């Protein structure tokens, strides 16, 4: 990592595993449950959040010394809302079907706790470059979980990946379906995402005992 100092690199690497926004901080769960039934939607959602959080962190960081602390939440909201509307309009213009699938959840990025959380916790106290890295790192951590959940839910629930059938045709009974296999309808509905996220948390904590809180 010649490009980044070790401290900067940790800004990106930490949220990927040991300080993951979803599995450790348990933020942004709502969208993780709602839109992960398809892998494509998960990835678009992850990219949208990366755009909003990376850029938003930079903007907030640049303005951090002139924002009066009493109205900082409103200022943050304006910044997020602007960026989210840009994402929403771009999706509507260039990927209309996908924006239908994501429906309100693009708009709801505004209320994603990860974003306001990073603004408050990091961008208000750090320079633009470090804030940018922090934004990218956290949205990557968010995206990784989304992709893992989306992968399993689409594969087991619909038998497809990116909409391409990988297990055979369920109607004509080819591939794996010829053996009597059937898609798992449970994986399509949001509660399944909760359980998959739970299993990821379980695996992560049993691999790294330091993450287990004592109570």
């Amino acid at each position, binding site marked *: 990592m010649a490009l980044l100092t070790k401290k900067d690199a940790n800004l990106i690497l930490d949220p990927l595993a040991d300080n993951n926004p979803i599995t450790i901080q348990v933020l942004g769960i709502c969208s993780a449950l709602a839109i992960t039934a398809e892998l494509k939607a998960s990835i678009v959602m992850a990219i949208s959040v990366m755009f909003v959080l990376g850029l938003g962190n930079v903007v907030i960081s640049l303005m951090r010394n002139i924002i009066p602390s009493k109205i900082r939440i409103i200022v943050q909201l304006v910044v997020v809302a602007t960026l989210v509307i840009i994402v929403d309009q771009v999706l509507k213009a260039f990927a209309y079907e996908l924006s239908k699938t994501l429906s309100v959840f693009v708009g709801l990025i505004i209320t994603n706790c990860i974003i306001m959380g990073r603004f408050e916790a990091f961008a208000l106290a750090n320079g633009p470059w470090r804030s940018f890295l922090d934004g990218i790192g956290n949205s990557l951590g968010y995206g990784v979980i989304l992709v893992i959940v989306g992968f399993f839910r689409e594969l087991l629930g619909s038998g497809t990946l990116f909409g391409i059938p990988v297990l055979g045709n369920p109607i004509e009974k080819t591939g794996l379906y010829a053996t*009597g*296999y*059937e898609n*798992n*309808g*449970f*994986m399509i*509905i949001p509660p399944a995402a909760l*359980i998959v996220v*739970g299993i990821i948390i*379980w695996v992560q904590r049993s691999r790294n005992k330091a993450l287990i809180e004592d109570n």
Partner: protein
Amino acid sequence: MSDKRLTFKKRLHILKHHYRDKKMAPAFNAFHTFLFAPDETTHSGSHVRAADDLKRTMNTVIMALVPVLLFSMFNAGYQHFSAINGFPENFSLWNDFLTWENFWVGITTVLPLVIVSYGVGLIVEFIFAVIKGHEVEEGYLVTGMLVPLIVPIDTPLWMLAVAVVFGVVIGKEVFGGTGMNILNPALTIRAFLFFAYPTWMSGDKVWVHEAVDLAGGPDAISGETILGFLAQGHEYSYSISDMFFGFIPGSVGETSTFLILLGGLFLIFSKIASWRIMLSAVIGSLVMGLAFNGVVDQGWITETSKFYGLMSFDYWKHLLVGGLAFGIVYMATDPVTGAQTNRGKWIYGFFIGFMSVMIRVFNPAYPEGVFLAILLMNVFAPTIDHYVIRGNIKRRMKRLKNATILPKDSEGAAKELKAETI
């Protein structure tokens, strides 16, 4: 002493001490204590001398399930042949029902379900016991018997295996194993199957052996359940005694209200299951059924409504059809997931019956809601207990305050009282 004079039991004890602290010890001990009582006694603290440890409790429930299982095997064949050849004109128990032909169909369909359920479930249990290093818990003995009885007869075995793994791991082991689970594992398995593979869990083809395979062909047979007929507003042709004795299509073991009733009485008199839960659940379902009948009698719901079929169904017949009786006797009374306090049991049971009938009537897509109602009340059981205990403390505190002779140190006494009631 030479080895030859050792009994089998003693040899097992010696082996047990030999393998102590080894990784596989829990797996060995599970088989060992299944056959014999352990040779250990507690060395300190209080001793409880009782014959009914967890393993005996579980075995008693299984004994109560055996008649249901045997009946379900005969019924599997009876429904299968009746769907093909038509129901016999003059039904005779010995000639039409208790035949080898029927039993053989049961052996080939129900027995594999039982074997897969036990095999997969116990493998999961053993793996977790070895990883965690604790003893294999007995909880799965009953779950493994309940699961095959609450699924449709032609459930593919791999689906059952997947569901059992899910139910045991997510429903039980993640919470810490037997005694720590919030949800009834057997019902978790049933719920998983229902939401994952709905085409295999509902409709008019899944309740009779081979109906799915024959569908669409010239020999197509159908075996709609009574609730299914009612949900579609059709007439059904089963008599009340058919319903009571269980000669109707349905999940493997849920049909015979008569044998379930006997099993329930056996569990009540052996003090394994709570009569409060059973009775209050029956009352709850009757109240809800009466309310629906009342709505129909008032003329608020007419025959054009899609709810008419189920709403006008006589309130007491709800207990005879579907899985209500089975759920009340064997599932709602699970001591781990049910309410613990006596008053809590009344509330818990009442709402199970109440919600079951309500879901049944209001969900035409799937006219059976017993498992959902029990799972829902499983979640609420700790809350119910909490408020029952709080209410009890409040009442006793009030009594203490109103008592004419107060103890001198009333603060201390109140504390003591609190400790005692909790």
